[in-house]
């Protein structure tokens, strides 16, 4: 008997090992390819003596830092070498739990190499690039967190876009009417919550397919905001409805004076700080508190939660309403944090990219913010594509985040770690 148990255990671990090994080798190969790419495409293209100059102070910054000048090919050789070593170690031994962090590291090194190569012989404002990256990440991360809140409770939310758009509109009107940004912000957040409630109503009470319900909300939001916008706030007579003002930039005392880091992280309007706070808060709430445990149990195994006296429907309603409010907060960024007015369809698909950031970030707030930074970086880069030394159409840089999402989704996540009961309406017998 006991010998049989042992052999069984060994075989089980052998089976798992086999799968693990395949994954490990693929990941290692990815690192090696990154190294090769740097060597073949970047290093071989450079004159050995050429230098890269990164400006470390964004325009109009609160703190100055000297430029960073370095010999391009030397640095790139070092980076490619590190990447190759990481790849080799990954194939032979594997980083185990830290694999994803290493992947992020290699990705950052690769992007750095690209930038150094593209800048070689000239200069790029790295600090400016990163500062814009942080700003661009805000709506994506907030959108992703809206998705996380809903999906951790088992409700797919592809309506983030529509919720954001609604909130952008409502906040504009309310802020303009009241003359108070706070009132506008609250109104926007509440309108997002109402959209979440409608989503919940359609897919919890009426058990509509959640993707279709999300589509309904997206179409409706686009329609109603554009309708009211062209009926009222785009007209000269009603111009006063479209002058909400904008949240001012805050320079955090002391921190914003830190060279390089200060202007990038600590000199923004409140949306950026709110993003960091919300990411930390949601991570804590989801994984450390009773509230989070119950929410996640509903997304993973609603029936189990139900048998333990947790009200599944109530939890799901709460999650979609909070998710809607989070998206609403993200939506007000467009009107009150970025442009100071409402324009038709001004969210321009950021809600969908937020959704991608959620998947990319493995349904975890910190991961989602990382994905938000990645997308934000390419966004920021594509705007400045013309300033680079290499002739790369901005459209192609603009495509990069979408391509990256597809590749990551297909190659790494695949069937993924989505909450187990997601998308299935819970039926109480």
């Amino acid at each position, binding site marked *: 008997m006991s010998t049989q148990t042992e052999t069984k255990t060994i075989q089980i671990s052998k089976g798992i090992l086999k799968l693990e090994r395949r994954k490990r080798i693929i990941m290692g190969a990815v690192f090696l390819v990154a190294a090769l790419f740097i060597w073949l495409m970047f290093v071989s293209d450079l004159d050995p003596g050429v230098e890269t100059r990164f400006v470390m102070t964004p325009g109009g910054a609160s703190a100055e830092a000297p430029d960073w000048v370095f010999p391009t090919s030397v640095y790139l050789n070092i980076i490619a070498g590190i990447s190759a070593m990481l790849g080799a170690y990954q194939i032979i031994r594997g980083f185990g739990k830290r694999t994803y962090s290493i992947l992020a590291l290699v990705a950052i090194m690769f992007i750095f190499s690209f930038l150094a190569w593209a800048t070689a012989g000239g200069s790029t404002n790295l600090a400016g690039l990163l500062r814009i990256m942080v700003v661009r990440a805000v709506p994506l991360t907030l959108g992703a967190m809206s998705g996380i809140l809903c999906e951790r409770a088992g409700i*797919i939310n592809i309506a983030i876009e529509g919720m954001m758009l609604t909130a952008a509109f409502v906040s504009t009107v309310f802020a303009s009417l009241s003359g108070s940004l706070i009132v506008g912000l609250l109104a926007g957040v509440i309108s997002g919550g109402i959209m979440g409630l409608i989503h919940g109503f359609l897919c919890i009470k009426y058990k*509509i397919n959640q993707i*279709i319900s999300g589509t309904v909300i997206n179409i409706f939001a686009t*329609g*109603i905001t554009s309708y009211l916008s062209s009926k009222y706030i785009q007209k000269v007579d009603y111009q006063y409805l479209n002058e909400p003002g904008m949240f001012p930039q805050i320079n955090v005392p002391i921190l914003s004076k830190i060279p390089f880091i200060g202007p990038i992280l600590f000199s923004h309007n409140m949306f950026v700080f709110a993003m960091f706070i919300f990411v930390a808060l949601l991570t804590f709430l989801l994984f450390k508190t009773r509230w989070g445990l119950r929410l996640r149990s509903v997304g993973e195994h609603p029936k189990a939660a139900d048998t333990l006296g947790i009200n599944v429907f109530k939890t799901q309603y709460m999650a979609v309403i909070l998710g809607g409010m989070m998206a609403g907060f993200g939506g007000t960024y467009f009107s009150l944090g970025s442009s100071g007015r409402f324009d038709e369809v001004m969210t321009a*698909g950021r809600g969908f990219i937020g959704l991608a950031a959620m998947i990319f970030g493995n349904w975890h707030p910190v991961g989602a913010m990382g994905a938000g930074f990645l997308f934000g970086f390419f966004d920021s880069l594509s705007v400045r594509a013309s300033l680079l030394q290499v002739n790369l159409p901005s459209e192609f840089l603009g495509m990069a985040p979408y391509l990256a999402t*597809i590749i990551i989704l297909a190659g790494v996540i695949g069937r993924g770690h989505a909450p187990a009961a997601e998308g299935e309406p819970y039926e109480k017998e």
Partner: protein
Amino acid sequence: MDKSENTQKKPLSVFWDEFSRSNILVIILAVFTGIVLGGVLVAFTTNEVYDAFRVSFWNGLGTAIRTAWNTYVSLFTGSVGDPQRISRAFESGDPLAIRRAINPFFESLVQSTPYIFGGLAVALGFRAGLFNIGVEGQIFIGAATGVWAGYALTGLPAFIHIPVAMLFGALGGAIWGFVPGLLKAKTGAHEVIVTIMMNYIAFRLVDWLLKFPMKDPTEFTPKTPWILSTAQLPRFFDTPIRFHLGFFIAVLMAVLVYLLLFKTTWGFELRTVGSNPNAARYAGIKITMATVVAMTLSGALAGMAGANEVLGVNYRLLPAFSSGYGFDSIALALLGKTHPLGVILSSLLFGFLRNGARSMQLAVGVPIDIVSILQAVILAFIAAPAIIRTIYRLREPKHKEDLVTLGSWKG
């Protein structure tokens, strides 16, 4: 049991019973309710209504109803034509006047055409259990490849050039559908996310194509050259009527999709995979193949929508040429119960709405976006028939009404 009950009832009430349980009634009521709600919205966003309410409640109500009524009348005349104007035109016998009078009707058909293609694309995907949100991007690519074939391939006679250009459009869309299909089948990457991403890639790719390789060098702004006259889909009347062959191609496609889905073994396979992939595997159907084929065909139909627009209406490609056909297609495919005939009917409804809404915007100043609101509300009612059944106190159906079978991200 049921039979004996029925024999005691009057035939008419039996009919009503049957009818009230059926989906068709729900659809009709959903559309009706949507239009009523739209009217309410229009009335309450009109200043005169508020002014009238200040006078008295009944005055306000009357003005509200009149406003909504006028809006829908102008929607109707804008989409079908003004009967008085038509009869006057026929009396005068002036061919141009006649054509102008009947133009709204044909223009609605022109507007319906891309919807038919797009709706078929979405419906075909749904039948195979796939949610193709990427129709919009596929339309862009199809338009780009179609227009290229239209201006770059020279020396072809029309009867070859037109089908070739349409095929190029279909091919472009097919490639854009094939990628998510393949990824879904091979890696489980969810088609909703991949097609959304493919949309953005398509928009940027077409932007770039218009700025550089496909730009008409004589133009200052990014535009493609005009397509050759041999590639233009023939029109059936003189100006201003733009009604062209594309409409009949779309209807033909609907027939083909119908035959494919319901009359062939391939369609049986697609539907089985869409309804229950496990049973499909058990029955020996290759799911990978079915998924890839369905997404590719879906993309091809969407691509034809794009090609149809550039070959039949615009004759060249401009930036941001599609105004959300792809997203509307999702709504109308569901409205048509993912059946080709239903898609034609709902496309006609959407086409007439959209065309009517344009003249409505000009005539009574109601923004065209009212159409999107109507679409969303109607779609919600169609997807949740229980709402309609509650409002109108209809009988509950015996069995669960499932609109479509779709998986979550897990695939």
